[in-house]
């Protein structure tokens, strides 16, 4: 997996098909340390949520769907 700023973020190809609406034409490239800090923070935010316990009802829902399908198929 490539994350944490491993992507090519070198602003050069950032124009895309979307023109900046403000007066700034070129996006300044962020300092690598700043990019890394933001990358780590985003990851910390996300991992914190990923690690939250999954409610039983979501697991039960899938078990139910599978059971229903089993009934129908047999």
């Amino acid at each position, binding site marked *: 997996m490539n994350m944490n700023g491993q992507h090519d973020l070198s602003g050069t190809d*950032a124009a895309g098909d979307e023109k900046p609406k403000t007066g700034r034409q070129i996006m300044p490239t*962020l300092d690598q340390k700043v990019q890394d800090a*933001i990358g780590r923070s985003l990851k910390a*935010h996300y991992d*914190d949520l990923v690690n939250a316990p999954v409610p039983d009802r979501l*697991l039960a*829902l899938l078990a139910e769907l599978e059971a229903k399908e089993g009934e129908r198929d047999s």
Partner: protein
Amino acid sequence: MTADRHQGCAQPSRAEPKRSFRDLLVAEIPNLRAFGASLSGSMHLADDLVQDTLLKAWGHSSSFTEGSNIRAWLFTILRNTYYSLYRKRGREVQDTDGIYSNRVAVPADQDSAVDLADLRKALAKLPEEQREVLIMVGATGLSYEEAAVVCGVAIGTVKSRVNRGRARLAELLGIHPADDPGDIGTIIRTSRQDRPVARGP
């Protein structure tokens, strides 16, 4: 917890395609919740959103191409569901339910430069189109290509949104390497302190 007792999970088995599909879905639930919460600003809404997503995914399992990235496929469903049904609700309850109100807001690791609570406040201020791609590309492991497919936009658009979102976050969080070295520039600091001082005669 109704934990699965299947012998192996996530390995697609041809004999029991549905069973393994369920395993694939179960394995993605934590990511779906995290992505849903990041979009809606509410863990409570995220669970409803995930429930809808799982139901739709189950009903449309034939449209999933085996071997392709199931996370990207599920994110697409979740995101469409969010924008068509949940977005308004999300805005209404955002601050009362609090995505994170019962999650302890501490940095997950000491390397993290920014407090989670601060980051989340800043994330909430970003335009949706920037927030979603920052999360997808920066935290979920999706590539730019996959994020572009999820959002239905060109890859260059994703790149430019990521760049702008990142710059805006840095601004909101006040991260500037030049004038705030103490925050993230420990390397700079120690290299100076550790310099031996010439002493004595």
